[in-house]
């Protein structure tokens, strides 16, 4: 069973637009949600993360909106740049400790200049 789902599978936006990437999860116990950015040939790198006690987290052009009741979150990338073209993974974790992340299958973002 896929614990974390992402949509859309792929997304194309123009430079300067806001890209919206969606994520939903099954396990109500999930408490920590990191978003990872992965470029071809590289490993994932942490972009931004949020705890379930918050409903919004901003870091520069990147913002996470979190809705605990609906078990949904979204990553907004404002003023998208061609260098943002990558695959973005949403992940969930139920509690601190030595737990593996549950990753979604990713959204492939292409930003057209």
């Amino acid at each position: 069973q896929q614990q974390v789902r992402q949509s859309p599978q792929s997304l194309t936006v123009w430079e300067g637009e806001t890209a919206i990437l969606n994520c939903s999860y099954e396990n109500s116990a999930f408490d920590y949600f990191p978003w990872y950015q992965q470029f071809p040939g590289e490993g994932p790198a942490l972009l931004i993360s949020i705890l379930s006690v918050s409903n919004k987290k901003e870091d520069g052009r990147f913002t996470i909106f979190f809705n605990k009741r609906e078990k949904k979150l979204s990553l907004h990338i404002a003023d998208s740049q061609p260098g943002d073209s990558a695959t973005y993974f949403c992940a969930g974790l139920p509690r601190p400790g030595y737990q593996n992340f549950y990753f979604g299958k990713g959204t492939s973002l292409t930003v057209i200049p």
Partner: protein
Amino acid sequence: NSKVIQTPRYLVKGQGQKAKMRCIPEKGHPVVFWYQQNKNNEFKFLINFQNQEVLQQIDMTEKRFSAECPSNSPCSLEIQSSEAGDSALYLCASSLDWGENYAEQFFGPGTRLTVL
């Protein structure tokens, strides 16, 4: 930027052959994770360590997969008898001691395994 080192970057094996890959975690990180990322971008957790001790592992790793993190040596993941379905990107990640807090996992670039 992550300083997790993985070698080799690419590995090609025939079915039934052993496949071994190595990981040097970021300095000072006692926790090491191994994930398998398949061509559909699905991540599968394999095993994790704190220092030299196994913390968690899935059933798959108890059969054909073996892993270790000896002191003063790279961590390693070995597939005893490779199968075509093992073809994937194997990612190593390291983190600080989680304790009561969430700690970021820093990923290496991965080892791309192709089993012919």
